C-alpha cells in the first residue's frame, strides 16, 4: 500500500513538474539571462506607433547613443517636442469630431490618459501650462536591457560602425511594449565580434576588438 502511495505521489509530482515546465518553458533562461523580459512601464509608450508607424528614427529620442556609453531613455522634454500639441490619437480625435458634430457643439480638447501621465510628471495643467500647484515628478522607467556592472558596454562604437539598433534590440518598431529579444550574454556579444564582417548595415568591414579589456575594466 505504501509503495502504491509512493507511486501515486511520484506520478503526481512528475505531472505537476511537467505542467509547470510547459507553462514556464516558453523561455527557460539560465541565471542572469533575461530574454523575453517585458516589464510594464509607468507610461504605456508604444514603439510600434512611434518608431514603426510614424517612422521616427531611433536616435531622435535616444540621441545619447551616438555620443555616450548609454543610449538612455529620452527626457520628458523630448516627448513634448510633439506632445505639446498632439494630445490624443488620431482615432480619438476623429471620434470627438464626430461626436461634436452630432451634438452640434465645438470640439472639446481631449487628452489620452497615458499622455496625461506625461503632463502630470511635468507638472502641467489641463491647458498644458505649468501648474504651480503640481509637483514635477520624474518618470521612473523600468530598465529592460541591462548588463552587470563589470561589463562596460558602450553604444558609441556600435553606432559609429552603423550596427543596426535592431541587430541587438530586435524589431523594436513592432513592439507595443519593449521586450528584450537577445540574450545579451557575453558569448552572444563575442560571436558577433568574431563574425562582424557579415553583420554591419553598411556592408563595410569593421574590426570589432576581441580583447577582454574592451568591456572589462
Amino acid at each position, binding site marked *: 500500500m505504501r509503495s502504491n502511495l509512493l507511486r501515486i505521489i511520484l506520478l503526481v509530482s512528475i505531472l505537476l513538474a511537467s505542467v509547470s515546465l510547459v507553462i514556464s518553458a516558453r523561455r527557460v533562461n539560465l541565471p542572469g539571462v533575461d530574454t523575453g523580459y517585458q516589464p510594464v512601464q509607468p507610461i504605456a509608450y508604444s514603439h510600434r506607433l512611434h518608431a514603426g508607424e510614424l517612422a521616427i528614427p531611433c536616435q531622435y529620442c535616444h540621441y*545619447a547613443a551616438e*555620443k555616450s556609453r548609454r543610449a538612455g*531613455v529620452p527626457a520628458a522634454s523630448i516627448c513634448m517636442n510633439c506632445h505639446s500639441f498632439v494630445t490624443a490619437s488620431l482615432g480619438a480625435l476623429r471620434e470627438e469630431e464626430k461626436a461634436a458634430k452630432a451634438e452640434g457643439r465645438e470640439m472639446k480638447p481631449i487628452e489620452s490618459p497615458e499622455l496625461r501621465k506625461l503632463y502630470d510628471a*511635468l507638472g502641467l495643467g489641463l491647458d498644458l501650462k505649468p501648474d504651480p500647484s503640481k509637483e514635477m515628478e520624474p518618470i521612473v*522607467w523600468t530598465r529592460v536591457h541591462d548588463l552587470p*556592472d563589470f561589463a562596460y558596454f558602450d553604444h558609441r562604437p556600435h553606432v559609429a560602425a552603423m550596427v543596426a539598433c535592431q541587430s541587438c534590440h530586435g524589431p523594436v518598431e513592432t513592439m507595443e511594449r519593449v521586450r528584450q529579444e537577445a540574450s545579451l550574454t557575453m558569448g552572444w556579444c563575442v560571436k558577433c565580434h568574431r563574425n562582424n564582417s557579415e553583420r554591419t548595415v553598411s556592408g563595410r568591414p569593421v574590426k570589432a576588438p576581441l*580583447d577582454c579589456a574592451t568591456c572589462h*575594466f
Partner: protein
Amino acid sequence: MKIKDQVKTKYRLSLQQDAIDEQPQQAGFEGGGADRSRVERRTFLKMAGFTVGAGLSWGCTRGGDRKLVPYLVAPEEVVPGRPYWYASVCGACPAGCGVLAKNLDGRPVKLEGNPDHPISQGGLCAIGQASVLALYDAKRLKAPFNRGQESDWSIVDQEISTEIERLVASGAKVRFLTDSCLGPTDSHIIEQFLDRFDDGRLVIYDSISSSAIADAHALSHGIRAVPRYHFEKADFIVSFDADFLGTWISPVEYTRGYRAGRRFDGELRAFSHHTQFESHLSLTGSNADQRVVVRPGGMRAAVAHLADTVARRLGKKVLSSDLPESGVEQTVMDDICKRLTTHRPGRALIVSGENDRQIQLIVNHLNEMLGAYDAGVVDLEQASLQRRGDDRALLELRDEMARGEVDALFIRGVNPVYDLPFGQELAAAMEGTALVVSFSDQHNETAEHAAFVCPEPHFLESWSDSEPVQGVFAIRQPVLRPIGNSRTMMESLARWTGVSAEARDIIRDSWRQRVFPRAADGATFRQFWDKTLHDGWTEVARDAVESAYDAGALAGLNLRPQAEPKSLVAVTHASMAVFDGRHAHNAWLHEMPDPITKMTWDNFAAIATATAREHGLQTGDEVRLTTPDGVALTLPVLVQPGLHGNAIAVALGYGRKGTDRFTAIGPRWLEGTPTIEEGGMIGANAAPLIRIVDGNLQFSGRAVTLEATGVKRPVGCTQQHHSLYIPERLAIEENERRDIVRETTVIALKTESAHGEHGHDEHLSLWEEHAMPDHHWGLSVDLNACTGCSACVVSCQAENNIPVVGRDEVVRSREMHWMRIDRYYAGENEDIDVVFMPMMCQHCDNAPCETVCPVQATAQSAEGLNQQIYNRCVGTRYCANNCPYKVRRFNWFNYPKEDRLQNLALNPDVTIRTRGVMEKCSLCVQRIQYAKIESKRQGRPITDGEIEPACAQSCPAKAIVFGDLNDPESRLVRANQDPRQYQVLAELGVKPVVSYLKKVRNRTESGGSDERS
C-alpha cells in the same frame, strides 16, 4: 516471504506484516524488495528532485528591477553619460593652480591641471588631486552654527547684522583674519566691508609663512612682495632650505620651471645645477645635484659666507670681515661661487625658504649681485600673490587680542588656534571678544571658540576668483550644486551689510569694474567673461613697477646664529600630505606615503642616524621632545639619513582635532586594529615648536631634549614593501644587488651621446612575439624629471577607485596603491643621494603573471596591455607571487563603502573590486578605450598625446609619457631612443613596455661614489 503473497488477506497482511517488520533482514532478498529504507531514500530523492525542479522552473524569476530616471527637461548641451570639463582654480593651497574639473553625470569626479594655465601648466599636485574627496565629506558643516547650535541663515544673518550695526555705531575695532587663498574679489569685498568700521583691518597670515621674503624686499627694493621665481631661466640654483619642489609657495609651477631647465631630450641643451643647503632631508634636497647639510641655526652664517665669497670674487663690498662660522667648508663655498660667477650674469637664482629677514636680505643682496633681478629670474614686476602674509600684522593682532582691544574678529581659511604657537592664548582671547565669526566648514580648533560658524562651500561648488601672480586672473566656477546649506564669504558679507547678491554677480561686477578695463583686446565684457570662463584664465595689463635695489637695507644686519650649535634643535616643516593641517581630514592624503620617508598615517620625529645610535633608538620607538619652556610632544622616531646630527625634523599639520573620524577606516576583522582609537588624534601638533624671532614665525631653531618613553609604535612605512631586491638568503652570488635604478651624470651623457652608445640588451625568448598590428601601448618614465612628489599616486587613486586601507593594513604591506614611488638611498648618514622611481605594472609582453593564472583572468590584449579581468579572478594570488616588480595588489577585504556621499567621488568608468580579486595598474585602460571610441566616432586616428593615463596627466614635471610604440613619430618612441633608456629587470626577459630614462646628475661623478662635486 515475498510481499506479493501477503497482499491477499488484509488482516493477515497487517499481522504478518508486523511480524515481518520485526524480523531482521534475511539474506537473498532482491533489491527493491523489503528493504524499505533504500526504497524510501531513493523515492525521497526522486520526489525531492522533481519538486525542486518544478519549483525552480516555476519560481525562477529575474532579480530586482533596475530603474531608469531620465531628466524631465534635458539641458541642451549635456549628453548623459558623457564627461564635461570645466575650468576652475584649485583652492587646496594658496598657489592657485588652474584645474579642469571632470564632471560626470552632474558631479566632479576628477581634477586635472589646466594645460593652458600659467601656474599649473597641466600639472596638479597630490593635494590638489585629493581635494575632490574633500568635496564629498559628510562631516562638512551643512548649516550655520550659532553658539554651538545648528541654526539657519535668517537667524544668524539677523544677529550678525544687528551686531555689526552696533559695532559701526560704537567705533569698534574689527579685524579680519585670513590667509593668501584670497581672490581679488574677496579682497575687495572684505576691504569694502571693513571700511564701514572706524578701525577695520585685514590681517593676512600664512601658516607656512614667507613673510620675511616680502619684508626683505620692502627694505631692499621698496616693494613689499614675494617675487615670482622663474626656475626655467636659471642655470644655477642655490636654495637655502627652500623646498620649492615640495611645499614652498608654488611647487607645481616651480617643478615645471625646474624641469624645463634640466632637459635631456637626446641632446643636451642646458642643464641647470642645483645646490641645496638644508638641515633636514626635503624633497627638493633629495633632487639636488649638490646637497650641503647645514647645522640647524647655521643658515644665516652659510648664506653670509656665500654672499661674501661672491662679493669678493666680483669685487663688491663684503657684509662683514668677521662672520660667524657656518660649519660649511670654505672650499664648498668657493666651488659654488665659481659656478655662479663664471658664466654670464643673470643665470643664477638664489632662494631661501627660511622665514628670517636677515637671511632674506642677504639672499636679495646675492641675487642683485648676480643680476637675477635684471634678468627677470627673480621677477618683482610680476610679483607673486601666493604668499601675502604679514607676520608683524599677525603679532600685532595677537597683542591687541591679548589686551582685549578687538571687538570683532572674522576668521576665514585659517586655523590660528591650531597652527600658531600662541594658539591657546588666542583662543582665550577669542572667548572674551564680543563678536567672533568663523567661515570654516568644520568645527575646527578655531571655530570652537567662535560664536558664529558660517560655513563656506568647497571650492568646487562655489564661485570665486584668483590672482596667483600679478596680472593673471582666473575664475573659479562651481562644478556642482552646493551640498548642504553653505554660503560663500562674499555673499555672507554682502548680506550682513544689507545687500542680497549672489557670488557670481558680485564677481562679475567686480571684474567689470576692475579687471575688464585692463584687458587689451577690445572685446565686450560678455566676450571677455565667457572667454575667461572657458579658458580658465586671462592676463591683463599690470601697473608698471618701479624697483631699485637699495644696498642700505643691509645696514644693521644681524648675523648671530639662530640656534645654539651644540644642542638638538627642532626643525618643523610643512607636510607634503596635509600641508599645514588643513587637509588632515582627507583619507587619501594620509594614506599617501610621504615622498621622502614613505610614512603614512602619522607624523614622527626624524632623527639622524648618528643621533639614533647615540640614544639607542630605532624607527618606531616613541620619544618625548621637550623644550625648556614646557612644550612637550610625543612622537614615534624615524631614523632618517641625510639629517644633520643636531636636527630633529617634525612635520606640521598633524595632531588635528577630528582625525578620530578615521577610527573605522579600513576593514574590520578579527586581528585588525583601528587606525586611531576613539577620541585620539593622528600624529602630534608640532606648531608649539614654532618660534617668534624678530617679528617672524621661525620654523626651526627651538632647542629640544629627546627622551625615549619605552613604547613601541607601529609605523606604516611603505618603503620596505614590495621590494624588488632578492633577499640575500635566496640570491645567487652577485645577484642580490640588481641595478634597478640607474643614474648617470651630465658629463658622462655628453661623452656617451657623442659616441652614440646604447646600453640595450637583447634577450632570446622562448615565447613567440605577440603580433600587435594596431597599437602597442607603452610608457616612459623619466627619472631625471621625476621629483618624487607623488601626485601620480593620488591621481591614480582618484581615477581608479583605489580603496583606503588604514594604518593597520599598511603595516601589513597591504596598501592598495597601484602606483608607488620607490625611494632609494645611496651613501650613508648625512651624505646621501636619493633617487625616486615610480613603479607601476610594467605590462610585460612575456608577462610571468599571465601564464600562471588558473582561470585566465589576466591576459595580454592585442595592444600590449596586460589586462586584469576582475569578474574572472578567483583570488589564487599566484600572479602576485610571480610578478618580479611586485605591482599587483590583492583585495583582502571588502573595503568599507558605507559612506554614500563619499561614494560620489568614485569614478563610474572603473569597476569597484570586491574582496578576493586581484588588481593592478591598467594603464588607465578606461581612458584608452574612451579615446579609441571617440576616434572611431569621429572617424579619425588617435593622435599622439590624446591618451594620458591619470599619472602622466597629473605629473607637474611631465615625467611620464604614454604613447604607441607602433607610431615612430610618437613622443614615446622618441623617448625610447634616448641613450638613457633602460628597462627595469630587463634581464628576466619579461619584455616590459615601461621604459625608464636614467636619472642625470649635474656632477662629475655619479651618485653613490665618494667623489661628488
